[in-house]
């Protein structure tokens, strides 16, 4: 009886220590996403440079890469060249669209940023933060990939650099454009 108690206690302590050890690693600020696999919320807003109203509905039936960014965000600068490269590579495909969502930024700063770092796709201004909240965004950069049915298939918190860039282009965008849709990305 006592031995059973001791084993149960030992297992409990080991379990708690394992959880504690696991908790020490990873980003404590990371919020597990709940949106992957769900339909993307619709939105519309003015384009940063032209002011033209852009709506997600305009792109139904296409694979959409949405990147949330801000001019004050250092990691956004790090990934910017890769975002341009993604649109250079897939932009000619009629089933592909790349969209930037400008987050908590001033219009003038956003325009200057695009002038300085270059631009080859449209950017929607999130004027009241509602697009970001609808997508559960809590910082920048964050990137979402929507499939041709408008389902969120992938979410990346942090910059699209190094292996993340390779994974996004080879294992996410390319297969989604080719179809049939893979179950897990």
């Amino acid at each position, binding site marked *: 009886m006592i031995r059973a108690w001791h084993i149960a*206690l030992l297992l*409990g302590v080991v379990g708690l220590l394992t959880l504690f050890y696991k908790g020490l690693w990873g980003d404590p*600020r990371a*919020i*597990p*996403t*709940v*949106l992957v696999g769900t339909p993307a919320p619709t939105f519309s807003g003015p384009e940063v440079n032209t002011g033209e109203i852009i709506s997600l509905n305009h792109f139904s039936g296409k694979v959409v890469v949405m990147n949330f960014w801000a001019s004050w965000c250092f990691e956004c600068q790090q990934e910017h060249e890769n975002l341009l490269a993604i649109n250079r590579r897939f932009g000619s495909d009629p089933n592909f669209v790349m969209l930037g969502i400008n987050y*908590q930024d001033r219009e003038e700063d956003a325009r200057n940023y695009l002038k300085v770092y270059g631009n080859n796709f449209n950017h929607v201004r999130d004027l*009241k*933060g*509602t697009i*970001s*909240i*609808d*997508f*559960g965004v*809590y*910082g920048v950069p964050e990137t979402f990939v929507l499939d041709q049915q408008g389902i969120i298939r992938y979410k990346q918190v942090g910059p699209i650099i190094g292996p993340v860039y390779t994974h996004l282009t080879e294992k996410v965008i390319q297969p989604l454009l080719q179809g049939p849709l893979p179950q897990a990305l």
Partner: protein
Amino acid sequence: MKRILIIALLSLLTTSSVSIADTVEEQILDIKTREIAKTLRCAVCQTESVWESNAELARQMRQVIRERLAQGQSAEEIRNYFLSRYGDYILLEPRKSGMNWLLWVGPFVLLGIGGVLLYRTLGRWVAQTALIKPEETLPIDALHRQRIEQELRSLEK
């Protein structure tokens, strides 16, 4: 002239009562916004609620709460909306369902187990160190007895 005065007075009363009603409605919206925002975690500051935080995201979330309340949504519907966007993380108080029960019940279960273990251990210690009966004590030898009596006498003086 009299008629004009009455009309002016009536329109003044109507306008002020409408503005009072608007103010009351705004105050009710503010109170409800605060109640909901206090239950949501600020996603960028972690230890603060959406109500307490000065972060831009928290400010925007408060605005979303207010707009949804104005549209007639209930507190539960608004909390569910944020839950559907950010998951359980957004709630300052975990929901009482599924694995979350571990968080609610776990500390009490651990406290109970600790109490039982403490009770058993203390019981064992008490049993091992039973009180010594007087007859089991060693008799004092003559020399010590003499010394004690001497000390007592000196105290009585």
